[in-house]
C-alpha cells in the first residue's frame, strides 16, 4: 500500500471515504489486502484507479497519483 501523498495525513479511509477517526472501519481494514484504494486519504474524493496484473495506480484530481 502506498503512503498518502507527501504533506498529507490519512484523514479519510481509502476504502469507504469516511473520516479515519470514526469507528467501524474493521471491514475496510480486512478488505484492504485485496483492494486498491478508492478514496483519497486526504480529501475523500473518489479516485480514478487502474489495476493491472501486477499493481495499481490511483489518481486524485486534487492530490495526484499514488501507486502500489
Amino acid at each position: 500500500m502506498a503512503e498518502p501523498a507527501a504533506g498529507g495525513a490519512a484523514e479519510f479511509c481509502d476504502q469507504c471515504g469516511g473520516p479515519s477517526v470514526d469507528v467501524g472501519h474493521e471491514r475496510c481494514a480486512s478488505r484492504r489486502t485485496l483492494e486498491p484504494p478508492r478514496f483519497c486519504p486526504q480529501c475523500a474524493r473518489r479516485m480514478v484507479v487502474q489495476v493491472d496484473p501486477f499493481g495499481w495506480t490511483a489518481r486524485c484530481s486534487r492530490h495526484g497519483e499514488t501507486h502500489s
Partner: protein
Amino acid sequence: MSISTTSTSDRAGTPAAGDILATAREQVLERGEGLTQEQVLEVLQLPDESLDDLLALAHDVRMRWCGPEVEVEGIISLKTGGCPEDCHFCSQSGLFASPVRAAWLDVPMLVEAAKQTAKTGATEFCIVAAVRGPDERLMAQVAAGVAAIKDAVDINVACSLGMLDPDQVTRLAEMGVHRYNHNLETARSYFPNVVTTHTWEERWETLRLVREAGMEVCCGGIVGMGETLEQRAEFAAQLAELTPDEVPLNFLNPRPGTPFGELEQMSGPDALRTVAAYRLAMPRTVLRFAGGREITLGDLGARQGLLGGINAVIVGNYLTTLGRPAESDIDLLGELQMPIKALNETL
C-alpha cells in the same frame, strides 16, 4: 448452437444417492462422458465428509482427459467502470453507487502489462472492457492494442468486450484474437435475478457468433450469487451443452454499492464441491480458477483447487481487485509438478 430447455442428454444408469462417485468414476473418468444435470446436483449435495474423495476423483479426471499442464493467464481492464448494464454483482456498472470510477488504459500500458504477464510464463492475455458491447472507439483501441501486443510479446491475446454483432466478431477474428470471453454468468433460470438490462439468450447469441467465426469460446460465470444448488447444476449442464474451450469459474466477491454487496460469501467446501462438480460435468474443458478464490478459499484454496479439477489460473490481479502475487501461484505449480502450458499447445 441451439438452446435446450432440458438437461444434457439423458444417460442410463442414474445412480442411487451415495453411489454418485462410483458412477462418476466409471462414466467420466473411464469413458470421458460428463455428468448430467441431475448427476451434478447429486455431487453438489454430497456431504463435507465426501469432499476429499470428490476432489481426488475430479483431479484424476482432469489428469486423464486434460493432462498435467496448467494454462496461465493475465487479465487487464482496458475500459473500467461506467457500464450501462446492471449486472448485480459488478462494481463497474454505472447504475450503482460503486466507488469504481471510469478509466481507460492507453496502448503502451496495455503492452507493458502483456510483457509483464508473459514473464510469468503465462500464455494468455485477456483484454477486458466494461461495456454492453464495443463501439467504434473501443474497437479501434482494441485493434491498436492487439497489434501492438503481437508486435512486442509472444502471447495469445483474448478479448472480453461484451455482446458483439457479426461484423465485430469477424473483425476481432481478423485481428488475431484467438479466444473470446463472454460469460453466461449463471443458470438461465436465475439470470433475470442477476441482470435485467439484457438476456441470457443475447449472451448465447454472441457465443454462437464467436464459435462460427473460428475463435475459441471462453464462457463461465459466478457461483454464490444466491442461486440454488439445482440452479448451479442447471448452469453446469448449460455450459456443458455449449462445450466451451474454457470455463472461468468465479466465486462471488460481494462488491460495495452493488445489489449483491451484502450477500454472504459462499463457503470454502461449497466452492470446492462446485469446482469438482463442474470438472465432472466437463471433463475436457479448460477449467479456470478466476475471481473471488482468494476471499472464498484463502491461500489453501489454490492448492485444493488445482488438486480438485482446476487446470488453469488467472495470475496476479483482476480487473478492479487484487489477487495473490503471481509468483505464489507459479511457485505452487512447480511444487505440484504441474507444468505451465506452452504457447504452442492446445489443451
